[in-house]
């Protein structure tokens, strides 16, 4: 479930070069690709808010709320908040290397391979991964990574090169905060502002308990009430998309290097809009007004279709 970065780049180049409008380098593409991906990703939240206020048809594939949720589902995460007296720290906060690559030479028999160094650190932090065997990317169901161990489902041929790329997850938006202690039922926490907090703590009817806990969210930290809660807090959140990488080997011309590349993480249905947005910026880069106008009008048209 991703958009192939090479397909997008080649399509952009094709449209740009059709009438010798100019050329976009891989480095420019990577920057603009990341920008476009974030732009599209950022519209999901406002679109969802708009669509929630509109009655939706119940027919399959036409419910815009469901469709938007499907696009967001790629980035939905769930993790534990770690207690650091007196607050809880959110998961997936950037620290250390943002990405790592490790390479193995396949042996037979040998389904498991041990990660080390930055790859191990990122794996322990629950990083996003992709694995290539003999330059072919494996489906996420064809392997698993747990701690230091990469486990392949099928035996590779001895001597084949296995490449593991790991990318750090980065926290984007906070969703629900839940509390569970031992075998007690899970309780959803209520987010409150600092102003409300004092009123709530003062009222005997609404003061927080372990059954009705509350929290404030300030400076990327959770302050949980009652303060007797020091563990068992987990959060659902949205992470940022991993920036795309069109990797290449330098030489006479840019040659695509699949094992070091990273695809766009957006839903495949976003491919057209993604290319259009990249073209919009490409038009600015190559200073071609026609490209800018065509791309801008297409984006506008698409927005109208999606929201009317």
């Amino acid at each position, binding site marked *: 479930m991703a958009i192939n970065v090479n397909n997008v780049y080649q399509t952009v180049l094709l449209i740009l070069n059709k009438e010798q409008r100019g050329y976009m380098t891989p480095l420019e593409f990577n920057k603009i690709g990341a920008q476009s991906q974030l732009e599209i990703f950022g519209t999901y939240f406002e679109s969802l808010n708009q669509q929630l206020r509109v009655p939706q048809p119940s027919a399959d594939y036409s419910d815009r709320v469901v469709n938007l949720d499907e696009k967001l589902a790629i980035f939905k995460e769930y993790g534990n908040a770690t207690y650091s007296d007196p607050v809880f720290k959110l998961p997936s906060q950037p620290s250390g290397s943002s990405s790592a690559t490790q390479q193995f030479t396949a042996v037979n028999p040998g389904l498991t391979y041990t990660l080390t160094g930055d790859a191990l650190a990122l794996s322990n932090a629950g990083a996003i991964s992709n694995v290539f065997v003999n330059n072919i990317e494996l489906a996420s169901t064809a392997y698993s990574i747990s701690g230091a161990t990469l486990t392949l489902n099928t035996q590779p041929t001895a001597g084949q090169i296995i490449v593991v790329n790991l990318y750090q997850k980065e926290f984007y938006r906070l969703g629900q905060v839940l509390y569970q202690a*031992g075998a007690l039922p899970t309780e959803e926490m209520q987010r409150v502002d600092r102003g409300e907090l004092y009123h709530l703590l003062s009222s005997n009817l609404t003061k927080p308990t372990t059954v009705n806990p509350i929290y404030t969210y300030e400076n990327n930290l959770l302050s949980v009430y009652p303060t007797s809660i020091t563990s068992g807090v987990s959060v659902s959140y949205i992470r940022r998309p991993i920036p795309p990488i069109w990797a290449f080997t330098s030489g006479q011309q840019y040659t695509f290097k699949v094992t070091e590349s990273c695809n766009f993480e957006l839903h495949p249905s976003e491919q057209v809009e993604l290319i259009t947005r990249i073209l919009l910026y490409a038009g600015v880069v190559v200073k071609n007004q026609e490209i800018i106008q065509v791309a801008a009008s297409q984006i506008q048209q698409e927005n109208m279709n999606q929201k009317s």
Partner: protein
Amino acid sequence: MPIPNGGLITETNRQYYAGAQQFTIGSTGVGQTFTSTFDTNLVFGNSDPATNDYNLNNFKIFTSPDANVWTELNPTSAIASTTGTTDNNAYGPGAAVTITITVANTDILAGMTIVNASTGAVYGTVTTVNVGNTTFVCNLSAQIPVSTGLRFQFASPWTEANNIITVNASLTAGNYIKIQMNESTLWDMHGDYSYTRLDDIINNFLIAYVGEGKLIPSVKRTDVIFHAKRGLQEFSYDTLKSIRSQELTVPDTLSLIIPQDYVNYVRLSYCDTQGVQHTIYPANLLSMRPYASPVQDDQGVPTQDSVNSNIDGTSGITEKWDNNNPRKISGAYINDYEIADIYWKTYYDGALGQRYGLNPETSQRNGWFIIDDRKGLFAFSNNLKQKNIILEYISDGNAYDLDARIPKLAEEALYAHILYAVLSTSVGIQEYIVQRFKKERSAKLRNAKIRLSDIKLDQIVQVMRNKSKWIKY
């Protein structure tokens, strides 16, 4: 259906009726955990009956080799303790003292407390068990004399946190362990199905009544909690059944402290020798307890003490009331026995309707009570001295966690109450919608009152049968 299968009942028959949950021990070892699935949360103080905190527990842990004969798991039970005798050396005190016992014992485990088998004096704890099970590295706080009979036991053979029990003692595969609820906890559990917990009401409300496309698109959970609790309070006053009561004895002081969770009384009565209740009436028109009785000077002006507050004296009215003879107020005969036995009375006792023109409000021999708001007391007339009193009263449903529940017969009324409360305090809701839910709340509350009033057809028929009697006059 003995096994819960996804319905509202989540406890097995054994859990509900016997208050027990049994586990088969899968493997031999220490530190095994067992998860309670009772609807009632476990409360843990200590696993040693010798400690005061043990009384906080609302359950006990038993073990059995055959699920037939059960032994409570405590520090001295066989499964959590064992014995041994030291050799001809004295040991300790010290942080890492290696002691030797005469006979190898595989039941001695790290973490066990070492006590004198005879006196119970504590020597220290085992930190490491050496190979061979005859020598042990121990942390000793007192010296162990030569050839001392020792008992090795877990000071805390099990612990509990958040409904998960961890057994520190070594359990044997194939044996059994069970959680047994205490009797008073079991009383609370019985009949619990007729109630819904307030927390469930709040969650159900948020699921069913709040969300996009509904009248309430979003609401803060704390708002719902507030309205639910307020609703429970209001319902407690006039809709829900009064289940609070206390049996008390009136002391010589003729006063009893108002219960901690008291909101209002339903009835006070005393019990005669047949166990029949006789209603005690408030002495509203007869006397009262003054809120303050300031000491006055010759001019009638209250006098003050060294911190400029009025000096509070003794109430003369109270003294007189406490020493009166209630029979002189009620007009009851001296030989009128205070018992609901009609055969005690004869025509010659003058108790069979021969007295006319009495004030019915005061013509009763049951006695009176006064509420002393200043001191938070119920005060009784002196004919009730040393009598058994039953105080029936209402609370507000929020005093204890166990109270935070509502009869299922009034569940819908509480949803309607929360819905109306939220809508009526939200901006942008049309008044006709608010009024609609106001009516709905009122109708559902009325339904709840009728349901909870326990009107049964057979009982009505029985009352009506009485009407066919001749009315004598």
